[in-house]
């Protein structure tokens, strides 16, 4: 066995050695349509990640290894040319190329957004990320792979839960209660992107992006400014992300096959106390409080028990030491297979793919499996018509576990005390001598809310699965009645059904011993279509213009169906035991939620001599979500660009080969609020609520007939430069986004009879600067080193909240509030000063900054916020022969994190286990300790009795971090090597995600996406941790072949 392995390794070394070869060259001259030398043309071999630019004389020289290569010549505004060359050892080949200005035809037309992509420089701020960059990082969901890839794009990674979603923010956050996520467009239609279809079920929000197979993605465009996002008008205030799926582009057949495998481990570990530590600290707290004898122990004794009983329990407790964290986490295994086929013929082509992805997390019992299929055919119908279809079906199966506040690892970090055993060790009798528990039965305890707990028992016995079925189908008719005129009609249906089935076995119900089954289904039908006509014309020599008009409709309906069967006995242990037509089944059908959207738009574009560019867009959008008088809003935008490097005084400059200035302004909007927020509503309680057996009718919602769009005035300006033939590129961009009429779901005084209502209240400012650069340090035939880096600074300020107080809007169960002059989602807590060395008590600061021992909610104040000032990433790519080493670092500076569960884990000694941090506590006068003297009595810290929730700034930490997000080593086999296998390409790669993180944050992870209650919570509570699972560190290997 061992000798076989050695032989394999020796073979691999031989293959790798054979890959090394002496240098060969391709050189030549590139000319334009008039035969003039063409400087600045990018000459590249994509497979090798190599490229150079032509010099002032249009000349280039590219050193390559021997073999067959595909060399691409590109320049914006010109048709790309690709040439296959075969280089023998030591050969020097001359290849001259002539480029012509691009001309869009029915065959090569690309539609991105609403319009025809003309491959000309534009006025917009767009970051485009290729599919290969997304699949290079194995993440729970594709959007996490966007992190660090584009300036101003903040991606907060999801927790380690399988299938969990990230938070994406583009240039800060301008919304308070309305959804703050960017608009997602897939193949031309807006996706259903509701993160709260299942609310906050088991401490996890639904991730509407998890069902997209990353292997199907051709590209992702991030549209940031008014010029880029403005054409989406009323929905673009938080940016737009456009996902384009793959299509066949070549003639004949081509196949892609990829397999990957990996393991998931926690990126960090909680440091919970063991039994000895916990008991010792609890005893210390008891004695600090004046207690004598042994301390009482949760679930074993009470403070009222006599000393002998307490001592016996204490001694018994010492016999058990369960590491509950270890009981809930392990190693997750991942594997995936993707098969893609492309076929191109004269009048049709098709891209077809099948994908299977099994993604276990490190949380035991938790996995997300995606099975996906896609067919993207294109048909040429006659001479003037083309039909593109994108048909996809996905099933996402999430094997669920409890997390965070709901249980699982959350229990292990809170109520699971180390002296609780997993199983009963001895027989337990009741007062009358009956056997209650036998050895080997699960040991259950009660948490402070009376809930039955044991994360192992729940994981092993609870049947809980969420299945998402999704069909995203779009069709696009492109009609070209004449040259340069395109009429494009795009329509789609995004159909989605999420079903969550849960079987609680009878063993969980200690009081009555009955189980229950529930099935909750949400069905979303999201129809949309848009139709545009675009005509481009050369108006006079050098002056090109185009005009696009269009309109768009969208309607979406969500249905809710819940089935419940109660009183199940102990024979119900799996889903197969449940009769779905059980006569005791109770079915509740919720009120469907529907909304519609309507938009009309026009866009004019001009460019003059490829130097000056101007665009103007006007949209008039209507939404059913707004009041009668405010259904429509107007959203104009204008933008301009100037390519300075085309001016005579700069053209041919040896240093600056490209320079562009661009600026844009526009209004964008946000309407992402609940469908019926505007209405004052009554309910007739048709679900059978009666009083005195008589029907009732009652108001359910305060309406606001004046609800209108949240509107953002978005100004942006940028300078793009290419230096030394694009060896160095730098883009610097600045923006100012001012949002008015920002929608707030305002908390009403309960004495009004309602809890909240929607109103246009706030004003929010985001302004910042972004920098991105690419440096090709070394461009040798066998060795290359490239660095891409981006940096973004954002200033966020809540400018106004009308006459309301900070408590008018809060972030779910978190302690973030709206504070004028501070960022959205600022932490509003009692300020902690220090631990008094004399007595070990926590000292707070009141509103005037005076020290006090009294914890009082009236002295809450701004103590930090979770929005970073600076974010970014940098990627270093090293090529050596056929090896590529890529290291992606991401960083975040200036944000704080509120470690909300730390207030219990390193606060009052309660029925929660604690973190080892608490060992640094005050013990005697003079101690300079990080933590207060231990106590079982919350009033010691000035808290109200019965309220150990200690919301102070002591648990606000600096969340700065630098993380090696991805480290990858790839090897591309030489064609000669793989020709025998009839392969076109073969690549093998290994990567590790989240290998290390540099941070001062003492908790689990400085980057956190917790479970949220609603979009408002998602906006207001970034960087709040509450027993949130840590992120995963995954080790992966992948092999991709094309043939």
């Amino acid at each position: 066995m061992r000798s076989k392995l050695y032989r394999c390794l020796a073979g691999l070394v031989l293959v790798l050695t054979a890959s090394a070869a002496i240098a060969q060259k391709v050189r030549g001259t590139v000319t334009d349509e008039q035969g003039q030398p063409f400087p600045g043309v990018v000459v590249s071999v994509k497979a090798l990640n190599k490229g150079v630019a032509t010099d002032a004389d249009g000349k280039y020289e590219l050193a390559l290894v021997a073999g067959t290569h595909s060399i691409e010549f590109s320049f914006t505004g010109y048709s790309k040319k690709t040439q296959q060359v075969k280089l023998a050892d030591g050969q020097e080949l001359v290849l001259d190329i002539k480029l012509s200005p691009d001309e869009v035809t029915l065959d090569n037309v690309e539609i991105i957004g609403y319009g025809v992509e003309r491959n000309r420089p534009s006025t917009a701020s767009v970051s485009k990320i290729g599919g290969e960059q997304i699949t290079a990082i194995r993440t729970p969901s594709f959007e996490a792979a966007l992190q660090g890839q584009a300036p101003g794009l903040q991606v907060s990674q999801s927790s380690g839960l399988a299938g969990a979603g990230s938070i994406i923010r583009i240039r800060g956050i301008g919304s308070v209660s309305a959804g703050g996520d960017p608009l997602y467009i897939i193949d031309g239609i807006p996706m259903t992107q509701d993160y709260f279809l299942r609310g906050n079920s088991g401490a996890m929000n639904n991730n509407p992006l998890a069902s997209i197979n990353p292997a199907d993605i051709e590209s992702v465009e991030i549209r940031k400014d008014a010029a880029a996002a403005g054409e989406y008008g009323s929905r673009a205030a938080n940016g737009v992300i456009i996902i384009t799926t793959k299509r066949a582009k070549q003639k004949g057949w081509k196949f892609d096959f990829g397999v990957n495998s990996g393991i998931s481990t926690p990126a960090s570990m909680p440091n919970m106390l063991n039994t000895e530590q916990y008991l010792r600290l609890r005893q210390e707290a008891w004695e600090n409080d004046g207690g004598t004898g042994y301390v009482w122990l949760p679930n074993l004794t009470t403070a009222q028990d006599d000393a002998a009983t307490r001592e016996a329990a204490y001694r018994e407790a010492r016999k058990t030491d369960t590491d509950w964290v270890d009981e809930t986490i392990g190693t997750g295994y991942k594997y995936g297979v993707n098969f893609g086929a492309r076929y191109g013929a004269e009048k049709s082509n098709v891209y077809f793919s099948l994908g299977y992805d099994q993604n276990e997390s490190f949380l035991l019992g938790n996995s997300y499996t995606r099975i996906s299929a896609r067919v993207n055919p294109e048909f040429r119908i006659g001479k003037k018509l083309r039909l593109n279809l994108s048909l996809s079906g996905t099933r996402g199966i999430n094997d669920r576990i409890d997390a965070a506040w709901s249980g699982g690892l959350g229990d292990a970090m809170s109520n699971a005390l180390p002296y609780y055993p997993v199983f009963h060790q001895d027989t337990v009798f009741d007062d009358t001598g009956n056997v209650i528990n036998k050895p080997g039965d699960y040991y259950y305890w009660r948490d402070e809310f009376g809930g039955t707990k044991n994360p192992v028992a729940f994981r092993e016995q609870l049947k809980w699965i969420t299945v998402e079925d999704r069909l995203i189908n779009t069709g696009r008719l492109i009609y070209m009645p004449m040259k340069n005129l395109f009429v494009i009609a795009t329509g789609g249906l995004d159909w989605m059904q999420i079903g969550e089935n849960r079987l609680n076995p009878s063993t969980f119900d200690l009081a009555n011993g009955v189980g229950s089954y529930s099935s909750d289904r949400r069905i979303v039908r999201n129809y949309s279509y848009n139709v545009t006509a675009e005509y481009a014309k050369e108006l006079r020599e050098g002056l090109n213009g185009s005009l696009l008009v269009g309109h768009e409709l969208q309607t979406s309906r969500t249905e809710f169906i819940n089935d419940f069967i109660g009183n199940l006995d102990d024979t119900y242990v799996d889903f197969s035991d449940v009769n779905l037509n059980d006569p005791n089944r109770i079915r509740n059908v919720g009120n469907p939620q529907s909304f519609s959207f309507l938009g009309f738009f026009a866009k004019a574009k001009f460019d003059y001599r490829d130097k000056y560019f101007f665009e103007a867009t006007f949209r008039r959008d209507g939404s059913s979500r707004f009041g009668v008088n405010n259904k429509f809003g107007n959203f104009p935008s204008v933008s301009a660009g100037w390519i300075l490097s085309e001016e005579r005084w700069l053209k041919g400059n040896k240093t600056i080969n490209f320079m562009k200035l661009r600026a844009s302004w526009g209004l964008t909007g946000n309407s992402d609020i609940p469908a019926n927020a505007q209405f004052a509503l009554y309910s007739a309680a048709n679900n059978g609520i009666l009083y005195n057996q008589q029907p009732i009718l009652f108001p359910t919602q305060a309406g606001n007939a004046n609800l209108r769009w949240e509107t953002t005035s978005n100004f942006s300006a940028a300078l793009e430069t290419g230096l030394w033939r694009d060896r160095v590129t730098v883009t610097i961009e600045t923006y100012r986004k001012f949002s008015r009429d920002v929608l707030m779901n305002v908390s009403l005084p309960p004495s009004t009879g309602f809890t909240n209502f929607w109103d246009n209240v706030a004003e929010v400012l985001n302004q910042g600067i972004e920098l991105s650069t690419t440096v090709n340090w070394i461009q040798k035939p066998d060795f290359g080193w490239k660095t891409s880096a981006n940096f973004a600074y954002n200033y966020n300020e809540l400018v106004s909240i009308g006459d309301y107080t900070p408590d008018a809007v809060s972030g779910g169960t978190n302690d973030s509030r709206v504070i004028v002059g501070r960022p959205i989602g600022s932490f509003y807590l009692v300020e902690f000063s220090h631990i008094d060395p004399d007595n070990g008590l926590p000292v707070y600061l009141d509103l005037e900054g005076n020290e006090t021992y009294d914890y009082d909610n009236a002295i809450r104040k701004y103590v930090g916020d979770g929005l970073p000032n600076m974010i970014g990433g940098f990627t270093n790519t090293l090529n050596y022969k056929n090896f590529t080493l890529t290291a992606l670092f991401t960083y975040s500076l200036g944000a704080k994190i509120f470690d909300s569960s730390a207030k219990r884990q390193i606060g009052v000694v309660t029925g929660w286990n604690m973190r080892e941090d608490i060992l640094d506590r005050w013990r005697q006068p003079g101690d300079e300790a990080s933590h207060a003297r231990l106590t079982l009595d919350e009033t010691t810290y000035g808290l109200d009795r019965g309220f150990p929730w200690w919301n102070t700034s002591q648990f606000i930490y600096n969340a700065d971090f630098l993380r090696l997000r991805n480290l990858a080593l790839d090897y591309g086999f030489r064609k000669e090597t793989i020709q025998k296998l009839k392969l076109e390409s073969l690549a093998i790669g290994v990567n590790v995600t989240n290998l290390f993180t540099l941070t001062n944050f003492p908790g689990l992870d400085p980057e956190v996406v917790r479970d949220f209650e609603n979009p408002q919570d998602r906006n207001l509570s970034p960087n709040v941790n509450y027993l949130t699972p840590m992120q995963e560190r995954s080790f992966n290997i992948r092999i991709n072949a094309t043939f």
Partner: protein
Amino acid sequence: MKNLRYLLLVAAIPALVSCERFLEYPPQGAILAEDALKTPDDAQRLLNSCYDVLANIFDGSYQNLAELLSDNLDEPNGNDFQSVYNRSTNFFTPTTNGVYSDFYYAIYRCNSLLENFDLIEGLSDADRDRMEAEARFIRGVCHWHVAKLYAQPYGYSATNNHLGIVLREKAGNEPLARSTVEETYTFILEDLTFAFNNLPVSNDAYADKNAAAGMLAMIYFLMNDFNRTVQFSDVVIESGQYTMNDTIDRFPNIGTTALPNPETVFGIVSFANDVRTEDLTGNYNASGILPPNLTLSQELNQLFAQNPADQRNSWITADGTKYVLGRYQDKVVFNIPLVYLTELMLIRAEALGELNQDLGTAIEDINAIRERAFGDDINDLPSGATAAEVIAAAREEYRKETVSEGKWMEQLKRRGAKGENIIIRGAPWNCPGMALQFPNAEFTSALFTGNPEGGCN
């Protein structure tokens, strides 16, 4: 110009669609407010919903909070209950926030009805008068109970100019400041007096004239206005419509005793398919592994245990160091009287004692209750009992009879306000925490002033 035709054609497509209609998506499964109140049935249903909220509040939710502030209970289980028991609620305490909000749900519904009678076609004058009186009855009852929990009592300050509660006379979203307790009681009395004057003599399970009279008697009693206490108690007791229950069980299981409590003037009704007692049955439930969330104080247990012949001792069982109240144990469906004969007899007796008038009637009432409890007349008050003896006996019986009903707290506060030195579990009756804190959201308006917290330990 052919190209222009295409552009115009696309631009014209929207004209084929009626834009406004496309954007009209009336909510499904819900009723627009403007369509909700059209018929007399609609109005009756809205009124029914006010009772529905009352049933949610008085399923034990209100009673438990009030009882926790008294000295009847031992330290409870559960964070919120502990906060109330320790008189340390703050504006984040969910349970106290929930009860507060529920009262104002009912008030909003009543106000919505009161303001919209004109929209209802075909409503008879008689029905309108009845509904108006019922709505004002509920509005008054809700405001009164909010005041009892969330403000210091009537008599806390000499002129009652201390802060009371937010008074909602209209349905609206605007934040309001708290009124004084004097204004609060004036408002409540206006509503209840209107109700008394306009409610029908009988009204099924809903509020009638006697219900309003009983409420007025109880309100005046808390104001230490003994003459009016007697006056309105008399209305009910002397009406002859109610008879004392034969047994000590105020909450007979419907279905086993067949008849609801004949003492009931007004209360919350339950049915097998609509049980409204869960906060009582759940929190006093002794059948679980752990003791109930709410158990009796040792001192109250001793009061019961003083006389073993007292049948009401059967309500209490010891579970370790806890004294479990079994009044609701094994009950499935039962009603919760809110205005009933026993209480009215006892407050009338105490009021007569305070007035030193008609002590014979007072003694007779107290003895009727004692004879029911003891099964004989051995423990009767002598006919020559003094006013002070009458008062003491009335209070003892009141405390025993109303245990768990959330009424003892308000009597302790009333007596404190009257000048007695009332200490409740080591703290004076008027310490700040005896008034629960208001919900956080009430503070979203700068007009609002909360209660001082703590100060009772």
